[in-house]
């Protein structure tokens, strides 16, 4: 649990983001402290993906400020570069490189972006493959793995960059039900290890288990931000209550 004096590692201040005329984020503010686990939920189109994609520069916000570990993201090449290496990301669609083996997928970042020697990178990759419990798949191509295995490879690929923050954008939404747990287990373990995480997910069981803070978004705004106990039992806003009704009793 982050205490009062914990160091903020992500500071999002009054951030707005437009796609053309459409405003996807409206004055969003959110602080995340070192080691904190934040779970973001909300209806489709509410801006959850946009928010976390702004944090690692996949989208450019137009106003407000985002600071990651002391660096302000101003979309200069320098700030983007120093923020990218600190932030890992896992996508709903895995986005593994289909022409590379699992091991090659993992080794690419460390060798090219972190300047590691091939052998060291391979050791590192093997370690993380063990951590996501698929060391035996190292030499297969992504197409030959199950969805759950692919997503665990994607997590390992992100971890190989040894980021201080991990972003998850609905990591289990594209998975068959029987594979969701194997991915959530890996994520839970990562949370236990002290990683700072922001997860967009509607897996309430996971959220209750690991979240330090729950965030509910609707129509580009953060409507509710609370600790999980309060969030799931007595949320302040009606919109949030309606949404929870839907996802808890579907």
């Amino acid at each position, binding site marked *: 649990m982050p205490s009062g004096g914990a160091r903020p590692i992500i500071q999002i201040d009054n951030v707005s983001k437009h796609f053309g005329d459409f405003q996807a984020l409206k004055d969003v503010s959110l602080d995340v402290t070192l080691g904190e686990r934040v779970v973001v939920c909300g209806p489709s189109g509410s801006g959850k993906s946009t928010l976390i994609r702004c944090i690692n520069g996949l989208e450019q916000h137009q106003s407000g400020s985002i600071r990651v570990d002391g660096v302000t993201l101003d979309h200069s090449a320098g700030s983007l570069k120093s923020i990218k290496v600190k932030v890992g990301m896992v996508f709903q669609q895995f986005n593994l490189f*289909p022409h590379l083996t699992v091991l090659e997928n993992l080794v690419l970042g460390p060798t090219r972006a972190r300047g590691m020697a091939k052998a060291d990178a391979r050791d590192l990759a093997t370690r993380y493959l063990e951590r996501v419990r698929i060391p035996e798949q190292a030499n297969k191509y992504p197409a030959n793995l199950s969805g759950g295995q692919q997503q665990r490879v994607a997590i390992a690929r992100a971890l190989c960059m040894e980021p201080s923050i991990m972003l998850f954008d609905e990591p289990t939404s594209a998975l068959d039900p029987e594979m969701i747990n194997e991915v959530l287990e890996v994520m839970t373990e990562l949370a236990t290890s002290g990683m700072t995480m922001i997860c967009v997910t509607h897996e309430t069981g996971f959220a209750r288990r690991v979240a330090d803070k729950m965030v509910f978004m609707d129509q580009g705004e953060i409507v509710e931000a609370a600790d999980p106990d309060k969030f799931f039992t007595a949320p302040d806003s009606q919109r949030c209550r309606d949404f929870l009704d839907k996802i808890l009793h579907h």
Partner: protein
Amino acid sequence: MNKFLVAAFASLLLAGCSGNWGWYVVNPMTDSGFLNLKFLLSGLYYTILLSVTAISFSIVFGLVIALPGLARNRYLRGINRFYVELVRAVPILVLILWVYYGMPQLAGLSIGVFWAGVIALALSDSAFEAEIFRAGIQSVDRGQYEAAHTISLNYADTMRFVILPQAIRRVLPALGNQLVYMLKMSSLVSVIGMQELTRKANELVVTEYRPLEVYTILVLEYLVLILIVSAGVRWLERRMQPDQRT
């Protein structure tokens, strides 16, 4: 289809054994026929060397031209469009003449027949290669760029290790077509005196005056060469298959 063509030519040759065809000009059993045949076949060397050199340049050049075509900046895209439209509009033969006879006056230096041919063929092919690469690169999913971004790859590494390997796999059949096209178009370089297949045939026709037989051999030379290349490209495609699909 290919088998059918081969059969058709075989029967044409057989038919030619009777009547007033003069196959003696290229009959390998006679000394002069053997020399003539050897003379014709010796053109293979430059046809292949010229085509392969030219396509190597045009692939690299086409790639360089394709990249600004993918940029968000409209002026960069404009450069790409301008080049492609301009080069595509010039007939290859005209380009060959311009490079060989015209360019030396412009630049004040003379280039050999071989390099003039390479430059002309590579230039004209590069516009097509650029379009092929642009389509191939655009067909790669946006998620691949985003994944590369999240593991901090820079633009060059993203292209080299993530996007191009996937794009090239997809455009391999089209690149194969271009190589076939290049082998055929290299025959045009005969007009400036390049000693390739077509030039050799023309020279033999002048001395032997048996155009029917000599040009039939010439057709067969291109046919066999291109069938081999096609088979090679298909083999390469198969070899690169297994890991496709996302």
